[in-house]
């Protein structure tokens, strides 16, 4: 968007300033948003540096289409999310240096976002980087360092405990584990070895960051440039994320009428990653599966790769000797030219490019358990090279005019965007360890190689216009219209129209309030607008045959059914906001919204006799079907509690809540998605639907279930499914207190998420029946042992004839509420009088602790999860982070 980012007077916008961003050791800018702005939920789905982040603005606006907001940096929409093919460690935004950011604005309602039209349905995050200002050159040097600690997990069973459970389980099944001739014999010597696999795969992780920036300028030339380097270890051994980046922002006035400028950043990132999914390959899940009497290395110091009694690989060996790496290079830049044709009439042309080259590399060691168990030619080297290029052009014509008390501003424009992605993958088989990172010669190994290529593009064209009007800076009105065409949609349905209108009234300016000094400000805004979503597969509307292969024959197989009528998902938001400032001490904003999404890009379940098939979930066909609403309330409050004698105590409070409701799903009133979720018309989308647990029978220690007739059964196969809540919190709150005195400043930020259930997948391993399959966690020790025991942990039974623990089990659902001390920061700015003596303009030092304390009763290690799925694959706790930093201005 070629608009100079100017605060709309009529929309719902949350702004995060550089003051709030600075001193934040976040590795990626979007991670800094949580709790600071209302209506935004930020979840790191993996607590690892450089990994992807889920951001939800005002609940969930859509179901099957993408639900990430649109990111705009310095006026240009950019790629976000994950570009990797093999991991999820390619977060585009992690290549943006947070220190370069002047401010982040979050546009939440349609009236302010409408100018971003089409893709604004999930909200817009506008990032503005720092630019030079007139004045003498300013040099800033920043240094930060610290470490992340997972703390002491102490949650896995030790050898003694596991042995006891296995012993008991055999006896409970009627076998004799003490008879050395029995296949059920359990050797007491096993207890002699005890490895804590959680400790083995985790560590305290250090990070450091250095940045140098220079800014300055005169009337005609302004510049900002920076260089930064950051190095982050992950808490999982061998994982890391490093970034080196540079930025150059420049503005030049050619003459009275013409100015040009650029924002350019170049960034290189490098990471080593782990599998963060729900499989055993995830090292944390591995720690729960691998028995504590299994050693990491043999007596010669060689890896013991095979943990096959748990169907697993030695995860330590995997991390150390089957490394998974990637590196990426991002070029993000745009240039503009502004021509003032007549006074007030401006033409502006912007051109931009956002290009990321990503290389991924994975070597599966020749001795790796999977190599030995599953490969004909052990040792597998995979290399992926991918490139994502986005080109952007925006041409706008703006006109500004004031006549008396009337002010007008009009803008019309034309945007074009094209995105191309491609990947080239090569996998070589039979690659020996000593050759592992050899180049192409690896691809001549005995096992041969596979080559694979994929590519995909989308394009978008937009026409838009906006008119702002205000009378006497008292009444404001805005309206906008936008027409977007997306290449993704069906032949006849590529274009969608979006519009908005908003009205704002600065009540304080009215005569009846003018003289009331207790009220410093009061403004009421009412807005309505529509926006769209096209986040589906690039070619989803086309019916095609795709390449397939059987044996060595190349062929094509049916892939999609043509849907020429597939078109824009639309959402309409009504927003009412009241801004106020009272008695010079209290300021804030109260906001209510109602967002209705229609023509939702929704996967309608279809009969599989159509040949449509999905490997995991029921087959669906995406259609413009279904609708739902999100309604909510948001409050932001800032108070100055004490301001006296250089001492200041300020409090910031944010509150957000939303309620989601499915209005219509077209085909069915109820959709069970075949996993653990059910969707019911008139209720929140996505409720857990799991086996109905009825506790443990105190008489015999067996798990009890409610069956379909409402009777108790021991057999899991007979258990009925029941609704067990939804992941959406009742409300979220952020609460920050800041004390400052002279140069000292102390702030503490608490975050509260109240309500919402979470579904902890890994508890199936940790607290499940199968003590012969998994190590288990401490709560399992509370199992039933004798008649009369009251516990929620059933007795272990070897080969439990009553059925296995299903993963869709009510036992794994728990209350997701938590209160967390997210951030404590103490900083000191050395008085400039002192600084000047050593020729420095200013020095700031700080110490910071994050996630230092959490209160919850979720039964899981970390309840902070993505509110859409509510699902925890693996217990990667949010680490406690300690940082110390120094920044100097020259």
């Amino acid at each position: 968007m070629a608009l100079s980012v100017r605060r709309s007077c009529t929309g719902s916008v949350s702004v995060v300033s550089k003051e709030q961003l600075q001193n934040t050791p976040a590795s990626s800018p979007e991670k800094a948003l949580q709790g600071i702005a209302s209506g935004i939920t930020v979840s790191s789905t993996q607590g690892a540096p450089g990994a992807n982040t889920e951001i939800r603005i005002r609940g969930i606006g859509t179901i099957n289409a993408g639900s990430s907001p649109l990111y705009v940096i310095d006026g240009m929409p950019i790629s976000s999310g994950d570009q990797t093919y093999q991991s999820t460690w390619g977060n585009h935004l992690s290549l943006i240096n947070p220190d370069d950011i002047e401010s982040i604005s979050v546009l939440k309602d349609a009236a302010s976002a409408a100018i971003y039209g089409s893709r604004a349905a999930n909200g817009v995050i506008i990032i503005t980087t720092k630019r030079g200002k007139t004045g003498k050159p300013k040099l800033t040097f920043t240094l930060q360092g610290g470490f992340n600690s997972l703390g002491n997990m102490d949650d896995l069973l030790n050898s003694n405990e596991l042995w006891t459970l296995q012993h008991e389980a055999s006896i409970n099944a009627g076998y004799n584990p003490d008879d050395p001739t029995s296949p059920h014999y359990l050797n007491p010597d096993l207890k002699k070895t005890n490895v804590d696999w959680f400790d083995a795969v985790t560590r305290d992780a250090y990070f450091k960051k250095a940045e140098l920036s220079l800014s300055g300028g005169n009337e005609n030339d302004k510049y900002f440039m920076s260089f930064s380097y950051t190095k982050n270890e992950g808490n999982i051994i061998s994982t890391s994320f490093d970034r080196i980046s540079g930025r150059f922002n420049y503005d030049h006035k050619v003459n009275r009428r013409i100015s040009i400028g650029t924002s350019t950043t170049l960034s290189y990132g490098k990471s080593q990653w782990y599998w963060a999914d729900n499989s055993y390959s995830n090292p944390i899940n591995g720690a729960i599966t691998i028995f504590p009497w299994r050693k990491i290395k043999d007596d010669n110091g060689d890896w013991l790769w095979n943990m096959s009694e748990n169907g697993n690989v030695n995860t330590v060996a995997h991390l150390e000797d089957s490394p998974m790496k990637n590196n990426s290079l991002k070029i993000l830049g745009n240039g503009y030219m502004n021509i003032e044709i007549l006074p007030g009439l401006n033409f502006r042309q912007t051109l931009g490019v956002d290009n990321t080259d990503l290389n991924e590399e994975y070597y599966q060691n020749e001795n790796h358990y999977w190599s030995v168990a599953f490969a004909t030619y052990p040792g597998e080297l995979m290399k992926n090279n991918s490139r994502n290029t986005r080109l952007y052009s925006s041409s706008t014509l703006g006109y500004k005019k004031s006549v008396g008390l009337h002010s007008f501003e009009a803008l019309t424009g034309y945007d074009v965007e094209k995105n191309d992605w491609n990947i080239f993958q090569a996998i070589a088989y039979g690659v020996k360890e000593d050759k592992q990172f050899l180049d192409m010669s690896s691809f001549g190994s005995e096992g041969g190689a596979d080559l694979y290529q994929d590519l995909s593009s989308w394009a978008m064209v937009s026409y838009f216009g906006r008119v702002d009007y205000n009378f006497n800076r008292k009444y404001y009105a805005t309206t906008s219209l936008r027409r977007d065409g997306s290449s993704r949609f069906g032949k006849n349905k590529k274009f969608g129209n979006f519009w908005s209108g908003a009205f704002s009234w600065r009540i304080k300016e009215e005569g009846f309030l003018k003289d009331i000094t207790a009220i410093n400000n009061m403004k009421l805004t009412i807005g309505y607008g529509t926006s769209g979503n096209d986040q589906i597969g690039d070619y989803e509307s086309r019916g095609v045959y795709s390449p397939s292969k059987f044996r060595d024959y190349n062929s094509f197989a049916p892939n999609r059914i043509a849907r020429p009528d597939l078109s824009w998902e639309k959402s309409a938001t009504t927003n009412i906001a009241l801004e106020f400032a009272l008695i010079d001490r209290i300021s804030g904003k109260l906001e209510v919204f109602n967002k209705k999404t229609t023509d939702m890009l929704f996967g309608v379940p279809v009969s599989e006799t159509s040949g449509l098939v999905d490997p995991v979930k029921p087959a669906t066909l995406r259609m413009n079907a279904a609708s739902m609403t999100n309604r909510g309330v948001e409050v932001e409050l800032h108070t100055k509690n004490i301001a006296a004698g250089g001492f200041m105590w300020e409090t910031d409070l944010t509150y957000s809540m939303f309620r989601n409701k499915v209005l219509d799903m077209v085909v069915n009133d109820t959709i069970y998605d075949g996993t653990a979720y059910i969707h019911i018309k008139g209720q929140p989308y996505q409720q857990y639907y799991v086996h109905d647990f009825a506790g443990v029978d105190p008489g015999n220690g067996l798990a009890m279930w409610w069956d379909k007739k409402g009777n108790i059964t021991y057999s899991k196969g007979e258990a009925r499914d029941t609704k067990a809540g939804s992941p959406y919190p009742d409300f979220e709150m952020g609460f920050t207190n800041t004390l400052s005195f002279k140069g000292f400043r102390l702030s503490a930020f608490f975050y509260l998420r109240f309500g919402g259930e979470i579904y902890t997948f890994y508890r199936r391993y940790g607290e499940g029946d199968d003590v012969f399959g998994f190590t288990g966690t401490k709560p399992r020790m509370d199992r039933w042992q004798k008649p009369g025991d009251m516990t929620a942990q059933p007795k272990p039974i070897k080969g439990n004839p009553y059925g296995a623990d299903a993963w869709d089990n009510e036992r794994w659902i728990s209350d997701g509420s938590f209160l967390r001390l997210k951030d404590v920061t103490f900083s000191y700015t050395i008085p400039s009088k002192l600084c000047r003596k050593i020729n420095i303009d200013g020095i700031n030092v700080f110490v910071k602790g994050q996630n230092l304390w959490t209160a919850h009763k979720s039964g899981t290690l970390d309840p902070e999860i993505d509110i859409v799925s509510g699902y925890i694959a693996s217990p990667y706790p949010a680490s406690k982070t300690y940082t110390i930093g120094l920044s100097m201005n020259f």
Partner: protein
Amino acid sequence: MKKVVKSLYILVFGLLLFGCGEDFLTLEPPKDVAQNVYLSTFTGAKNAVYAVYVPLQWGSYYGESAVTLPEVLSDNVKKSFKQGSGRYISEYQFNFSPESAPNLWGKAYNMIARANNIINALPSIDKEGHTDAEVNYIEAEVRFLRGLAYFDLVRFYGQSYIYTNDASHLGVPIVTKTEIGKPSRNKVAEVYLQVMSDLEFAAANLSNAEVPFLASKVAANALLSRVYLYMGDWAKAEIAATAALADKSEVYLASEWADSWNVTGGKESIFEIENKPGYPNVPGGGNTFAAMFSPNAYGDLVLTDDVYAIFTAGDVRGDIIIDDEGEKRCMKYSGNGSTDIDNFIVIRTSEVYLNRAEARFKQPGKASLALADLNMIRTNRGLPFLLTTTLSDIELERRRELLLEGHRFWDITRKGYDLDRGADCYALIKTIPYANNKKLVFPIPAREVNANPNIVQNPQ
């Protein structure tokens, strides 16, 4: 004013330079091809046939479940106490609900849709100078696969053929055209008619040029002999078996038998799904059915005491049964992920002899012919020549020969026998009388029932 004009030039130039037409939004998938284009020529249709085989390799089909489930549910296999990946606990316990029903349904229908698209396109293709016989060959090849898919579907989701006198109980929907439909279930008899029609067309129009890795005349006849056996049509089963054996009749000698499991496309093999590293679609990089049985991989599944006991001294088939820390495993599949070795043989000559033995025995006056077929297998497995035979001799031989090849459960239910899973069965469900037979058929997957209200669920 001059400057204004100049600026307007720039503006117009800018729009021309960066403005785009409607074509800009017309992006076609670069790697794909439209169905009507692809299937419009002989070459396209011929190439499309290969992709019809692909679903056979998937894990919910012959990549795993279609092999493992009929063993796990029967008296042949139990869940290991020693080793495993946590799989097959529910299956061993017979805990099937619509939500956990086997997903062969969707995979088989996917294969059927691939076949139907080709069959329906053939009448109007550009023959590019090819003969009608060549076009028929394409149709025959995909009808072989469609017939196999319907046979597997009706085995999984319908009660056995003899469940009602006229097989009028519910089978699966017969779909011959790809569409987003809501078809209801056809009768089992109708599904078998479809299977026969497809396989007979295949037998009449295919050659034996591509045995065993692609469809062939011998494969169609061999499979027909099994289908007729399931229907109790003994005469036709015998005729089909004889026709198949006329084309391929060799069986391994006792001395060769154990090693024959390492041979790709061996002399008994009639239709074989070749899995090799580098072949896409091979599940998880390896055929997981082998991993489930093998101690070298997941090894979740071991033999029951019951089946171990049927192998007597001298039987070479007992020689590949190993003792794995007190548990017994049959090493037909190495499970070393050596996917070029662990192919799955859908049908082979030994089965056809046993099909014919059973079919002959059931017909009056053919006991001696049946005995000859039975002895053909016995003598080549190190067992003594028999002078007379009973039905149970033939059934026992079949259980020995086809262990872990995905037959056992169907070989019990198709005859209306009670299921007895043996003394060492530790599941709650140890026996199922045929009369109490709700458990003898899988539920239709919930995903289908939810999307298609015309599907009547199997009683739970």
